[in-house]
Structures are given as C-alpha cells and as structure tokens.
C-alpha cells in the first residue's frame, strides 16, 4: 500500500456563482482499521480562504500549522489577508522546499479573491499547481470524485445547489473507496457567510 493511502482521505472543492464549496470525508484510518470518524481535513486560513489537505495525516496537521504560522505573520506585517492566488503560490513554494523529502499531502485550496471571484486549485505533494475553473479533487477517492464531479457539476450554481451537488459527489465517491468515508464535512462560502455542515453517509 502506498504511503499516500495509509490514512485514507477524500477532498473536493467546487466553484459556484460568487461562492465556493469545499468538502472532505471524516475518516482517519491506519491502513484498514478506522481510528477516528471526526478527523479535520479542511481548515480556515481566513474568512475567504480555506485549505483542505489529503494524504498522510501527520503531514496534514504539520503542514496546516506551518501555513497558519506563515499567514499570521503575513497578516501582521502587511496588515491585510492573503489573496487566494498568493496563498497558493506560498503553499507551492513551501512544498517544493522539501522536494527530496516531501510532505506526503495533496492540498486543495479554495478562496474568494478580488471582487469575490471564486478561486480553486490543487497541487501535488511537491507543489505543482493545477488551477481549475470548475472543481478540483484529491485523496484516495480522487478517481471516483473526478467521475462524480464531472457528471454532476454545472457552472454558476448558487450556494444551496452547490451544497447539494458537492455533497452528493462526495458521498457517492467515498462509497466506492474503502479507505475514506464515515460521513462528510462541507463548507459553503459566500462573500458574507460561511456555512458549515456535517453529512451523514454510509458509516463504513
């Protein structure tokens, strides 16, 4: 089993009309044994910027701590929040610093940029950025997620419809993957509010 599949994970982000949604599964496993069913894979950097990390859980947590550290210093120095594109460049640089001993994570970054334009991107474990206009996926369930998102996605969805779409895509994909699942955690972010919901799916 590859080291990226040690803990199991599924993360997906989708673009809507002046909003975005980011969702993840909640399982933390050690190979085939489930250890926790409430593992936090998505974290808020600031009100309009979220990062979801799939892959090895220890690196997920450490990388998140490093990024929050860098962002807090940036906020103090520059007296402003980081733009999503800027944050993505920072994450890419931090991952590439460890080119020959990488963090075993694949980040999914989602945010609202200038004029509340949604921004999503993903990258591999050494920082190769992949921007997308519709959706990005990562984790052990990524192949199923690609299929589900491709089938269910429509451009310019409003927040409610986006929530339904991303939830259905996530739940149906993790059902095809034994290493991810045990519910879902969805954030839908509009310029004025953040809606956080826990999904109950097949608890296996």
């Amino acid at each position: 089993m590859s080291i990226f599949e040690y803990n199991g994970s599924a993360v997906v982000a989708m673009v809507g009309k002046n909003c975005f949604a980011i969702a993840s599964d909640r399982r933390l496993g050690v190979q085939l044994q489930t250890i926790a069913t409430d593992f936090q894979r998505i974290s808020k950097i600031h009100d309009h910027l979220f990062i979801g990390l799939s892959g090895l859980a220890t690196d997920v947590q450490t990388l998140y701590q490093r990024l929050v550290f860098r962002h807090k210093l940036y906020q103090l120095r520059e007296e402003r929040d980081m733009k999503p594109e800027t944050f993505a460049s920072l994450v890419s640089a931090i991952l590439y610093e460890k080119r020959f001993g990488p963090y075993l994570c694949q980040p999914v970054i989602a945010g609202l940029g200038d004029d509340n334009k949604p921004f999503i991107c993903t990258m591999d474990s050494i920082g190769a950025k992949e921007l997308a206009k519709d959706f990005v996926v990562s984790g052990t369930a990524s192949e199923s997620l690609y299929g589900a998102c491709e089938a269910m996605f429509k451009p310019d969805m409003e927040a409610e419809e986006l929530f339904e779409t991303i939830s259905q895509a996530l739940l149906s994909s993790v059902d095809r993957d034994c290493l991810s699942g045990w519910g879902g955690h969805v954030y839908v972010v509009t310029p004025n509010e953040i809606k956080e919901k826990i999904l109950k799916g097949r608890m296996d």
Partner: protein
Amino acid sequence: MGDSQYSFSLTTFSPSGKLVQIEHALTAVGSGQTSLGIKASNGVVIATEKKLPSILVDEASVQKIQHLTPNIGTVYSGMGPDFRVLVRKSRKQAEQYLRLYKEPIPVTQLVRETATVMQEFTQSGGVRPFGVSLLVAGYDDKGPQLYQVDPSGSYFSWKASAMGKNVSNAKTFLEKRYTEDMELDDAIHTAILTLKEGFEGEISSKNIEIGKIGADKIFRVLTPAEIDDYLAEVE
C-alpha cells in the same frame, strides 16, 4: 572574524545615549548632493542634482535614480557606492518576494526590508553604517507613496521631503509650495523650482535627474529632452 580586533560593533552607545557613527553617517548624507521627492495626488516625483566632478565625465553614464522594481524607484543623498550596494540588496529582496508570492512587493514592505538591512549594519561587528539616505517612490494598491530611509534604519512616509546639502532651504520651500491636491505635472514643476533654489550655477537637463511614477504604475527616469521641456515650462 572572532579573534579580529574589529569584531566588536563600531556603533556603541555614547554616554549621552547617541550612536555616534550614525550621527556621522547623517553628516555624510548632509554634505551630499541635494535630492528631493514630492507625492502628488496621482503619482510621485523624485529628483536630484547631478553635479559631476569634471566636464570630462560622460554624464549620460551616471544614473543616480534607480529602479527597484517596475513600480518603485529610488534616489539618494550621500555616498554613491553605498547606494549601489543597497539598491542591489533591495532588488534581490523584491525579487524574492515576487518569487514566493507571485505578487509584486508592496512599497511599505520593500522599504521596511531595506531599512532592516540598514539597521543591521548599525548593530553588527566589523561593519559601518551606510552613508546614504534614500528616497523611495512607488505606486501600488495603496496609491502613490514616498518614503525616506535613514542610515539608522528608521523610515518615514512623506508628502514631500528633501535631503543633502540644501535640506533646510528646500524643506522650507516645499512647506510653502506643497498642496494636498497637487497633480504629478505640478509636482514636477515644484521639484524643479525647489532644486533651483539652492543650485550653484545654471540648471539644465545635464545636471539634474528626475524620476516619476504615475497611475500607470510604471517608474520612469525622464530623458534629458523631457527635462528640457519641463525646464522651459518653469521659466
């Protein structure tokens, strides 16, 4: 460096609480050629005297106003070689920021990092402070900005400022002439008049240098022909 006679810091406090080396550095700045900057409502202009030691010097090869980034420029009063070193370091810092964040460095951040370098040279072993004060002119998302950085590493944002030989006359002149809603072309005229105040000899496009940045966010050094046009308008 550990056993050397000069491994202690040359900037040690005097009993009166001053750092004498920094005072001397400021004196070096004060005896340098006059330079000034004015922040207009839609841009910034910086200018300096360009007195060459002899008529045999090829004046086109001397450039006192330098770019730090496409939208930030700088000029100095004091020691030219120290200025060159600072410009080199600042350019590198600006490029490192761009490489990390893929975003051009804000003017305040670049000024702060440059000032940090200058401060380090007042608290390290075996080095002396820089003998220059810088005027940094830039235009970014926060609008036009003008900063002055001193050898001590302190920096201030100015609406208009001058440095060098003629500093007190120039500042008095600027205090009288400055208005909040000045436009860039007015500011250039005012800059020329301020330089003229203390100028020894005839002012011409060959012995002054002017740099400007407008709402297009591109810093440019004016050509001698453009300076001649502005000089003619001022007459």
